[in-house]
């Protein structure tokens, strides 16, 4: 009896061992497959990764050279994706990326290679575009149109609809020898050019793009060095009420060691594109606070208020508020001394995310000015929902105010609404006596700013101007 049991037991044991070996073999095969998959795929989207893409690109470049046929690398970058990620969180951002990856994939042919290089950057390799360049361009345009329209419709994540656009840079390759890094750089440069041109479009690479990009890089480097080496400085444009200087708008200038004084129109846009505006903006705030601190000791200057412009990129930074508070605390700036100028367009485009920040800044004693008022949608709803202290009427309404009846009516309406809301009004761009008279005829008590009263001045010159006007119009400096 026992012998029979043992025989069966041993048989079962060996069967189990054999099954176990099979299982281990299966496991090993699965692990091998998984490892292999992970090595060439992007974990989030399941698309190919950089490693695989480059391997495929190597082969494609070789074949293109051998068969004299065109191919293309498409560099795709989602527009403003960082804002979506920052405002909705990474979870929703990731879900959106997965969705977009799927749509891009569906827009391509089976043989095209789509990879994710990281973040919101996707790359496509399209081969076999024929021997003729014109034909290749036409075919790639077809692919690009499909890609752009595939993501043009709203994407629903967590019951919210997100509108996403993309900028695409295209680099064609043919029979000439070209390095992998070069072709990728060309597509990347073309993508940046598409962004520069207003986003949501595709641009083919040409050598001028790279040249422009190089110039831009050079400018970025110069700005960075300029900040480090103290080449930037502030000038102060007076703001006048009843003949007295009651405040100033601090404006940044750059005195480059090689090129001399560079106007803001040449570097602010670059600084914003490269996000160096964040560093530059922090420096401006610090300098403005230093100035206010300096004025505190002077009986005439202590009543002067200072405005600084804030870029959308700066304000949308998650640590902007803390940074600002830290600077104000460090210099001990009193309530109502510093004013942040925010453009109407910024307020409109980031209405929801800015509301809380602006309320908190206002509670902390900062004044908020709505810059360029009248150029955007001029929604009165903003005036109600934000703690805005000052409305700055855009210079475009002031320019012909003494000639154009409609400008007069508009300015009158703005002043009336602002006063009803308890706001101060500043008219910008007052350059001649006619403009001044026309403004005075509408409201003689509003604050004016413009070349008629003085160009932006260096600190010492501005201080002298304040004192001179104070002597002329009386010591009381406040409005």
């Amino acid at each position: 009896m026992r012998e029979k049991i043992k025989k069966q037991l041993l048989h079962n044991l060996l069967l189990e061992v054999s099954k176990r070996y099979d299982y281990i073999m299966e496991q090993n095969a699965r692990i091998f497959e998984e490892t292999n998959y992970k090595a060439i795929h992007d974990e989030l989207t399941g698309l190919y990764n950089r490693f695989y893409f480059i391997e495929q690109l190597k082969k494609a470049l070789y074949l293109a050279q051998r068969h004299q046929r065109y191919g293309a690398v498409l560099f795709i970058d989602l527009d403003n994706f960082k804002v979506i990620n920052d405002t909705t969180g990474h979870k929703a951002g990731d879900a959106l990326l997965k969705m977009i990856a799927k749509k891009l994939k569906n827009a391509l042919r089976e043989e095209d290679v789509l990879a994710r290089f990281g973040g919101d950057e996707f790359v496509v390799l399209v081969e076999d575009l024929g021997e003729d360049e014109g034909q290749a361009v036409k075919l790639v345009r077809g692919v690009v149109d499909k890609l752009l329209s595939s993501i043009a419709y709203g994407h629903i994540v967590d019951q919210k609809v997100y509108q996403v656009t993309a900028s695409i840079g295209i680099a064609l390759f043919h029979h000439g020898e070209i390095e992998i890094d070069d072709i990728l750089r060309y597509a990347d440069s073309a993508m940046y050019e598409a962004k520069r041109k207003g986003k949501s479009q595709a641009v083919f690479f040409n050598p001028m793009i790279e040249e422009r990009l190089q110039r831009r890089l050079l400018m970025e480097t110069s700005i960075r060095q300029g900040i480090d080496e103290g080449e930037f400085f502030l000038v102060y444009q007076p703001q006048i009420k009843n003949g007295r200087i009651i405040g100033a708008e601090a404006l940044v200038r750059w005195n480059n060691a090689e090129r001399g004084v560079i106007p803001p129109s040449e570097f602010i846009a670059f600084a914003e594109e490269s996000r160096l505006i964040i560093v530059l903006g922090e420096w401006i705030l610090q300098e403005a606070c230093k100035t206010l601190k300096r004025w505190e000791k002077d009986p005439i200057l202590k009543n002067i208020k200072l405005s600084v412009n804030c870029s959308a990129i700066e304000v949308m930074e998650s640590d902007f508020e803390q940074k600002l508070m830290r600077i104000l605390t460090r210099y001990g700036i009193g309530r109502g001394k510093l004013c942040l100028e925010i453009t109407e367009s910024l307020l409109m485009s980031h209405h929801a995310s800015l509301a809380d920040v602006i309320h908190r800044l206002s509670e902390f004693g900062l004044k908020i000015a709505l810059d360029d008022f009248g150029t955007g949608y001029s929604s009165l709803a903003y005036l109600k929902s934000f703690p805005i202290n000052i409305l700055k009427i855009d210079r475009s309404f002031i320019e012909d105010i003494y000639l154009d009846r409609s400008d007069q009516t508009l300015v009158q309406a703005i002043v009336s609404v602002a006063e009803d809301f308890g706001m101060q009004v500043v008219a910008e761009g007052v350059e001649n006596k006619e403009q001044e008279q026309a403004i005075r005829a509408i409201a003689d008590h509003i604050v004016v700013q413009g070349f008629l009263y003085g160009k932006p001045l260096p600190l010492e010159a501005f201080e002298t101007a304040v004192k001179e006007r104070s002597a002329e119009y009386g010591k009381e400096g406040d409005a």
Partner: protein
Amino acid sequence: MFCRVFHSLNPSLLQAMEEIKRQFQADRQMDAFDFILIALSSRYPVWDVNETVWQVFDTKQFAAFHATDAFNNEEIVHHGVTALFIKFERQGRIECFVQEGVSENKKEVLEKTARYLKERENAFHIIIAGHCKAQTAFFIEKLAQYDIPIKNLLGGISSGEKVSDALLTYQFYNGEVVQDGFMILTFHHVKMATSVALGFESVGVQYTVSKAKGYRIYRVDDNQSFAYTIERLSRGIENFKPEYLWYTPIVVLDESSENFLTLRTFKEQTDEWVEFFGPVKEGQKIRLSYGEKENLLSADAKSATALAAQLPEPDLLFNFSCIARQYVLEEMQTEENRIYRNFLHAPLFGFFTFGEIGHDPSRRSLQYYNETSLLTGMTEL
């Protein structure tokens, strides 16, 4: 040291003791003793043991414990009384230490025991413990963490029958009946050597225990049911009984996954878990194994040879051999002790245990074993 083993199968405790006394008195080689160690069946009345021994042998120099099958040299004494008489010839002596409260996991018991062992680090200790609601294994593990001299300690778990809810695996010393504890017999001025016999060959690829609790394994590897594995082993066997799987204990490997750490004997299973006669831990690497009587006896011979190399002429042998091993040895279960005696020519005492206690092969930790035979030789200094 002079030792003799006698036994009786008389179902009356008093008459069994008297019969053993008569055997002792009739023995021409031994006319006095210093200590008696008694293994007796749990069928004898528990509360009469101390009194009966006093009455018959007129001494308090004895200790007793439950054992269903005890060893009188080659002979297996089933449900009887087996007594080892020890007479020291020089400075040898025996000290006995008992403790209760193992199942309650009392820190105080651990500390007292550790202190006792550390203070006698040059002595040799035999521990005979109760089942203690399956907590003895954990107690032993914890005790080892107290930096005790582990290589001088070994023993086994008393074997007995279940009456109502109590498993009768008791010890008896100095009028006390230890129901939830153990006794340690400390031999002073002796030289000792130990050896362990297995005989089961591990087969196949190892498993990693992924879910376990106490004596049970729930899952192995990436969440696979171990119960299903065990169920497959029993397929096609008519009137399957759990002890059939005593031929296939699991081998627990050490951290390097290369060396044997201990064996675990199968106890029972449900759809969810498989229970063994000793603890298993998550993360442990295990393998299936198989052994037959011939393999086990061959391992016994190797073990005896190893012991003889350390201690060629022992005065006394102890064998703590598992009841599962007894099952696998089948009709050859007396052969184990015969082999030991053939190699070592000394009186042999011991019993088939519910678990063995001894250091691991690396002598770094104290282990609770299943399905092994722990052989010890001793000689007086």
